[in-house]
């Protein structure tokens, strides 16, 4: 009866994804494609921010957008009308994208000749933070109505983000949103994160965000 055997595996399930993400990041670096993983909760103004960003940068660089948001109200065509190449990814109801799904998207998309690809991740502050997509950097949009204590409630999301855009600054007077507290809480989770207050609607702070992206893309291709 030596047919049964206990195999000691001790193999990480996340490690697999981390490895795939590292490979993808390396390949994109070689191709000179900067991949930005954009995360947020639903309704934070991610799509408006994205549209304004494309309009501002489309003459300087070739931009592609991979839409993974299940409940996205912007389809690939709308993004294409703004002058960017776009693809809608089907997550099959999944709550996040992992490195393998991102790779499949990238391969179907064809990123040849693109300088910047923005991956609009699923609107959710939990799961997308747990899976490295292989992106060059992680960005998130936090909107004023969500409250300045979000970094305390979703610590992992803020610890993986390189830049946090605090959107809807135009409604700040109507909410109990404390910008200094917000920055303090973000830096508690990630001392290196850049916090940029913006308003995608009025354009406030957007130049600072565009500059951040320009610098990032230039450094990636350096």
């Amino acid at each position, binding site marked *: 009866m030596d*047919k*049964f*055997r*206990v*195999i*000691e*595996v*001790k*193999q*990480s*399930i*996340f*490690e*697999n*994804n981390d490895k795939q993400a590292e490979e993808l990041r390396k390949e994109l670096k070689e191709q000179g494609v900067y991949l930005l993983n954009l995360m947020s909760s639903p309704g934070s103004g991610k799509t408006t921010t994205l549209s304004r960003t494309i309009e501002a940068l489309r003459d300087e660089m070739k931009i592609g957008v991979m839409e993974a948001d299940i409940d996205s109200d912007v389809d690939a065509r709308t993004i294409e009308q703004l002058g960017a190449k776009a693809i809608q990814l089907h997550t099959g109801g*999944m*709550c*996040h994208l*992992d490195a393998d799904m991102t790779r499949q998207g990238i391969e179907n998309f064809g990123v040849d000749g693109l300088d910047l690809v923005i991956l609009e991740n699923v609107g959710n502050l*939990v*799961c997308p933070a*747990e*899976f490295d997509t292989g992106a060059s950097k992680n960005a998130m949009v936090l909107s004023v109505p969500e409250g300045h204590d979000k970094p*305390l409630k979703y*610590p*992992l999301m803020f610890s993986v983000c390189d830049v946090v855009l605090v959107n809807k600054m135009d409604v700040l007077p109507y909410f109990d949103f404390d910008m200094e507290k917000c920055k303090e809480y973000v830096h*508690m989770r990630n001392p290196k994160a850049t916090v940029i207050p913006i308003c995608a609607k009025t354009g406030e702070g957007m130049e600072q965000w565009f500059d951040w992206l320009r610098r990032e893309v230039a450094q990636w291709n350096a």
Partner: protein
Amino acid sequence: MHELGLCDAIVKMMDGILEQERMEGANKIVLEIGELSGVEAHFMEDSWIAVTARTKYEDTELQIEMVPGIARCLDCGEECRAVTCNLRCPLCGSVKLAPISGTDMTIKSIEAY
């Protein structure tokens, strides 16, 4: 609810491991889930049933062992269980805590045949 996707990843890893070990199937798989991994044990159990239904792992028992999530205070070095300390060091009150265990999920062992 990414447990469904994780179960799918586990099945693929099992396929590879069993092939490598030249074994047919498995009676049991033992998973270690870290308290800070964001993975819910009961969702894993439900997802496992759904993912393995009508496959060769249909009768493979999923056993889960939880690994405590321990954080160390970067200011005073105190260690605490992250889920009960409210992300603050119980000794000095610092919020600069770094997780030192319980962030991962691993396949511990497979009882293969």
